[in-house]
């Protein structure tokens, strides 16, 4: 790299996590570890039918059980909620309908869990069955009663069509159009910590909900709304999460239920979901059927792309509208795609609701696109790595769909993994049964827009310096294990030159901390980091002024390091950080500063432009080596090389941890994880347990070689970009491409199970995967056309997009 990096004290190094010892010694209090005097236990009665109208709910027997303090049904919580303003389709407890096996119908608070369990089993619900629908292709036909009374039509929740440039012409002008159909099965987050919430209303009628949530701010809004309380009387405390991965980023029914029960009983009420219930909460990866038409020249470069997706949304909206857009948003940010069309439909089905899981809506299309590119390379005899390198989307550019790219280190990622794995000498040349595959990806560093329309900052940080030299930092961020507390402390410690462990983090508390939108969309490091730097620099300025005066040195000449503030030209002259605070406080009064961050506006001005834009994009490339047993179809992953363009590591060990964790999760998705239901057996989830829902163990985990590419992005704190989600994305297609290299078969479907490998081997076309893609029924009215920048467009579409109208519709 040409540019010289500043000489950091902490940034890019690997001090231990600020909460590391507490976690390792079991001291950290997760939500389920909390106990309050007189606490009651809540259990939730869930629907055992997939689709039905509720005729009656008889709670009388449950109420009579000694020890039961309250029984709650939906009629006490009639207001709907949902994470997106456009999908307020959930009730804390079902009002008139149940929509999947596991939908919450009634709740009980009792003096212990056993009594609560007996009580929910004593609740009798009479149902009038409705025809269920379990497959999105069926849902499209609209032959059954709609699951919801809103959406684009019948069981179509959302239908999207957007075209950037003349794709039809590009495809016609291509040397060849590759058309492929892929399927990506749904899978779930599988966080080790089950969701847990504790609520208590104090005598002054203020309610507190402690919860394993990734998004305390959004929960705050939903809880206040449904509980019909002013937000000022509702406090959300996000406990450290034992893993999130997107599974704790919706406001959940059980969080609101315990709050209501606490209100009813005047006692603290806690609920901890069983593992089965976590499978019912879900909000994980959407199953996506997709068709990609990729027009290429003989050199393999992309001329135009038409990508279609059909998402199986499950029974509720959740983040689904955003998920739908995300299945079409990021195809353009890795390679040059001159013209691009995306059509997507999300259908409701009577299954657990899908939502955001690590990579949110982008792993599915990324799988299709990267496998399709491998097919292009194979057909034209091109090296798949070289092909990719030949069409990099340039840095500081605007994509066909109006996303602004800043730094772009993908080619260096590819070069690293190709070199490390000796890809060029091994791809296509290993003995039968062994193979290497390559794939790339990109991900956002925070969504450019918040969940609900507003002009407010996305992250706020308050900072307070203590006379003793300690620094307290307040921020609404939530540490879900990724290390955001450590990132926050590191950013502040770097600017102020104090010991990392002298910093006290107060996080994720809506009463005490300024809003940070939450631990989702890979936004925390970039947004919170920038806010933290701003707050710390403001404090540093005050300290520099006061200390400079005392030392008779200009403030700009002062250095902050090793808990000292000193003259950089005469390092002996200086004061301790604590003395500096005393000087500053004497001069200015209490030293407290704030910082905040709002992402730059997106160049797109069309409807749907809100999904995709980001202050920066991370890039990843992976080579996966596999051995495939030709007789059984079983795949062993031998080694993974992965390069990730992180911009700048804040804490290198944490970055590598996220990369390795992503590889692990990606291998699970690639090889075994499946959220499957028995449509012919009442729509039950097939395997809602940690034993039977197969996810890899340490024994399946191969060696991972991680290369970090550090090309600082001007929008990132110290140049940092995301790492929480991006490195997952190339794994699944790289596995599929490696299987092709090993045996010459294409499994155009995830997970790639042994049975599918054998089927592909026995099929004439050496392929296993979906063969049909339904008509998405896109009408001319649905279609939105936007001229690309190259065509002289201005980011507007042919259909007027009235933001004012939209604003009213989704008033916060």
């Amino acid at each position: 790299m040409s540019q010289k990096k500043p000489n950091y004290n902490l940034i890019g190094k690997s001090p231990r996590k600020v909460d590391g010892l507490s976690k390792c010694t079991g001291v950290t209090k997760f939500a389920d570890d909390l106990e309050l005097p007189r606490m009651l236990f809540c259990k939730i009665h869930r629907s055992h039918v997939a689709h039905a109208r509720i005729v009656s709910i008889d709670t009388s027997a449950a109420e009579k059980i000694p020890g039961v303090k309250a029984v709650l049904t939906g009629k006490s919580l009639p207001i709907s909620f949902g994470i997106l303003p456009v999908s307020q389709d959930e009730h804390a407890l079902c009002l008139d309908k149940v929509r999947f096996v596991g939908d919450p119908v009634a709740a009980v608070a009792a003096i212990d869990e056993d009594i609560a369990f007996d009580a929910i089993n004593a609740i009798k619900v009479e149902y009038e069955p409705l025809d269920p629908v379990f497959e999105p292709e069926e849902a499209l036909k609209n032959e059954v009663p709609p699951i919801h009374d809103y959406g684009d039509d019948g069981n179509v929740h959302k239908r999207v069509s957007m075209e950037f440039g003349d794709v039809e012409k590009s495809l016609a002008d291509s040397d060849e159009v590759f058309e492929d159909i892929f399927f990506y099965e749904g899978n779930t987050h599988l966080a080790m910590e089950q969701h847990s919430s504790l609520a208590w209303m104090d005598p002054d009628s203020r309610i507190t909900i402690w919860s394993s949530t990734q998004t305390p701010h959004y929960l705050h809004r939903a809880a206040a709304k449904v509980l019909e309380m002013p937000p000022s009387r509702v406090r959300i405390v996000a406990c450290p999460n034992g893993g999130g991965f997107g599974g704790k980023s919706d406001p959940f029914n059980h969080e609101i239920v315990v709050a209501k029960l606490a209100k009813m009983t005047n006692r603290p009420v806690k609920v901890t979901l069983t593992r089965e219930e976590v499978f019912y909460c879900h909000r994980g990866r959407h199953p996506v059927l997709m068709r990609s038409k990729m027009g290429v020249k003989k050199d393999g470069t992309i001329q135009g792309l038409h990508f279609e997706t059909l998402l199986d949304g499950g029974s509720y909206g959740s983040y689904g509208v955003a998920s739908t857009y995300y299945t079409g948003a990021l195809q353009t940010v890795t390679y040059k795609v001159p013209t691009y069309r995306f059509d997507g439909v999300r259908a409701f089905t009577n299954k657990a609701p899908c939502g955001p899981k690590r990579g949110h809506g982008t792993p599915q299309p990324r799988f299709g696109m990267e496998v399709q590119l491998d097919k292009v390379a194979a057909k034209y005899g091109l090296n798949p790595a070289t092909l990719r390198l030949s069409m990099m989307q340039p840095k500081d550019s605007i994509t066909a769909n109006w996303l602004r790219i800043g730094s772009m280190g993908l080619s260096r990622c590819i070069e690293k993994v190709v070199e490390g794995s000796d890809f060029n000498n091994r791809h296509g040349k290993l003995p039968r049964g062994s193979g290497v595959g390559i794939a790339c990806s990109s991900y956002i560093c925070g969504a450019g827009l918040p969940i609900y329309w507003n002009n407010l900052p996305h992250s706020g940080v308050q900072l307070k310096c203590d006379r003793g030299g300690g620094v307290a930092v307040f921020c609404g961020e939530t540490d879900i294990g990724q290390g955001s507390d450590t990132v926050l402390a590191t950013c502040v410690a770097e600017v102020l030159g104090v010991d990392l462990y002298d910093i006290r983090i107060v996080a994720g508390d809506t009463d005490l901390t300024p809003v940070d939108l939450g631990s989702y969309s890979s936004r925390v490091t970039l947004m919170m980091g920038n806010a933290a730097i701003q707050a710390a620099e403001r404090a540093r300025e005050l300290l520099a002024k006061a200390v400079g005066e005392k030392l008779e040195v200009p403030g700009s000449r002062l250095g902050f390091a090793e808990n000292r503030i000193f003259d950089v030209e005469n390092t002996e002259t200086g004061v301790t950080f604590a003395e500096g605070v005393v000087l500053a406080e004497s001069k200015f009064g209490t030293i407290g500063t704030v910082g905040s961050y709002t992402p730059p506006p997106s160049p797109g001005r069309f409807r749907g432009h809100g999904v995709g834009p980001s202050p920066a994009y991370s890039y990843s490339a992976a080579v996966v080596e596999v051995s495939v047993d030709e007789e059984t179809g079983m795949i062993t992953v031998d080694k993974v090389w992965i390069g990730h363009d992180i911009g700048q590591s804040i804490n290198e060990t944490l970055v590598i941890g996220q990369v390795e964790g992503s590889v692990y999760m990606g291998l699970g998705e690639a090889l075994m994880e499946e959220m499957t239901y028995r449509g012919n057996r009442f729509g039950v989830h097939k395997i809602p347990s940690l034993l039977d829902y197969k996810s890899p163990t340490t024994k399946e985990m191969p060696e991972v070689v991680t290369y970090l590419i550090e090309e600082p992005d001007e929008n990132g704190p110290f140049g940092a970009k995301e790492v929480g989600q991006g490195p997952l994305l190339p794994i699944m297609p790289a596995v599929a491409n490696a299987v092709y290299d090993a045996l010459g078969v294409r499994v155009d479907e995830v997970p790639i199970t042994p049975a599918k490998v054998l089927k592909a081997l026995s099929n004439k076309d050496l392929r296993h995967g979906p063969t049909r893609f339904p008509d998405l029924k896109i009408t001319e009215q649905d279609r939105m056309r936007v001229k690309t920048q190259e065509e002289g467009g201005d980011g507007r579409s042919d259909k007027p997009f009235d933001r004012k109208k939209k604003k009213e519709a989704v008033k916060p």
Partner: protein
Amino acid sequence: MMRLPAFAYHAPNSAREVVEILAGEGPSASIVAGGTDLFPNMKRRHQTPKTLVSLQDVDELRGVSWQSDGSLRIGPGEILRALERDADIGNRLPALVAAVRSISTPVLRNMGTIGGNLCLDTRCNYYNQNYEWRRAINFCLKCDGDTCWVAPGSKVCWAVNSSDTAPVMMALGAKLRLISPRGTREVDAQDFFQNDGIDYLAKKPDELLTDIEIPDQGKSRSVYLKLRRRDAFDFPVLGVAARIELDGEVVKNADIVINAVSPAPTRANASEKALIGKKMSDDVLAEAALLAYKPSKPLDNTDFEYAWRKKMVKVYVRRALEHIRSSFLI
């Protein structure tokens, strides 16, 4: 979390006391050894014994001893971890140790016992679910309901015997001793398992397994191969135990037992017959494998696609025999 229902608990010191308590309590009582299978089942309410009789303090049910005739006596209360760490057993009965080592995880093998694994409840993914889930399918034949959802026309239950050691005990010709108020009886491992997912053991509820005896294996060689998704935790979706005794280059005796595709471990009689009197050539092994594959009938109630599991019977039987063939060369 799911919680255990209330139960009465006895922890006697002798096998005789165990049997007495069982007789007194009747069928609502259950023996608990390691509890690694029983307790999760109780939490999900598909086993709901009112009384548990623990073998924890019954020392006479533990221990491993080689007899003068070369046979091995194993106390069924011996924990799996102890067996897998016993170097003598490892040398003389490698198939048994392979099976034991493949059970679940090291942590659970520290609690789970060999007797418990032999008596393991049959498994089915319509059955190994919690109460609320099973309610959604109106329960099943094996527990609380009247339909076998694996094969809705079926009058019998198709839950799968998922023990790793059961097929090995059958292949090695083990004998099991049971005591009850009616006295002591000995059964061949072969006759201990029944092809009925509900009534899967010949052991009566009031009987206690007290001894496992594995005869001297002479010059035979044996193997256990296990098919499953992951290299730890998982129950088998196919288990193949095989033992071969040669006379010169010709197979004198063959024992091939297939498990985890039916309610009982099943002897592949046709495969055994096809081997006897023949050299272990590739063709002979392939034929034996094909004969094991044909009658096997896995159903859709475990992990993996059942059609694929059936195909794997052929592959795994052949691989088991190949493994034995190469072990004779050492």
